[in-house]
């Protein structure tokens, strides 16, 4: 899917599914996080809405940080019993490769919390974050991560089994 160059923030909403494109301003990440938690707090229990908001923030942080171009696409919605959040952006080949290595490493562990502790240990003496955000999504938000690459466009998806609560 190509990322279109459109207005600064463009939102499409359909019930509790939405898609938006944001510019690469770091302060927009917090704005979208609060919006996600507020919106999905109306259909999810507070804990799940909090997990979704945390995931949204961490994914967007990465996307904004590593995006080439001027836009990141964020999409949240329910499908096939899963609650999914996707980010999509253009990225440099070495950054795409780095994300792939992190997700493949994560998927080689069976225990998300032990992986998270290992990451914390590994990164505590390093200057960069090195995957701590993705590890946090898996260990704290209980969401599994996958990625898809088409040319220079990388899509990262976090998902968890979910049923909507009564509003």
């Amino acid at each position: 899917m190509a990322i279109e160059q459109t207005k600064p923030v463009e939102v499409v909403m359909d019930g509790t599914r939405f898609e938006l494109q944001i510019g690469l301003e770091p302060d927009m990440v917090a704005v979208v996080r609060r919006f996600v938690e507020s919106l999905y707090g109306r259909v999810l229990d507070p804990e799940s809405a909090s997990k979704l908001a945390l995931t949204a923030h961490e994914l967007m942080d990465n996307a904004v940080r590593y995006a080439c171009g001027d836009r990141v696409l964020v999409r949240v919605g329910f499908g096939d019993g899963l609650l999914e959040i996707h980010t999509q952006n253009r990225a440099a080949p070495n950054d795409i490769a780095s994300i792939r290595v992190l997700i493949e490493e994560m998927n080689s562990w069976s225990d998300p919390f032990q992986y998270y502790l290992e990451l914390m240990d590994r990164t505590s003496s390093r200057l960069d974050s090195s995957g701590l955000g993705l590890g946090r999504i898996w260990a704290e938000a209980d969401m599994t991560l996958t990625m898809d690459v088409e040319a220079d466009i990388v899509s990262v998806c976090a998902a968890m089994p979910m049923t909507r609560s009564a509003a």
Partner: protein
Amino acid sequence: MMFTDMAGIKNNDIQVELFGDGSGITVRLEGSADTRVKDAIHGFLQKTHSLASEQHIPHVTIDFRRLEFMNSACFKAFVTWLGTVKGLDEGSQYRIRFLANDKIHWQRRSMRALRCFAASIVSIEN
């Protein structure tokens, strides 16, 4: 001796302040900690560590009760700090107590991770 010389952090989204004396230091965070302030928080924790170490402060309290959110970049600053304290000789270590808010859901999960990462020096109070 009161510690009032250390400048805090204050911007639109977050406020960080330190207060205390020779018996203990408290660092209070209020607002939202994200990428925009990660370097400031990292530097603040480095100074806190220097102060605690040089003055032989037995414990540091981190008050998260009004911290709405913290992203992984700022979380890493705390991980780095805890790793530094963990790596000291036992006689040079100080205890770190986190004050958490049960109503802020991410804190329950993140505090558990910090406690497991540095169990010998960290305690959590809700």
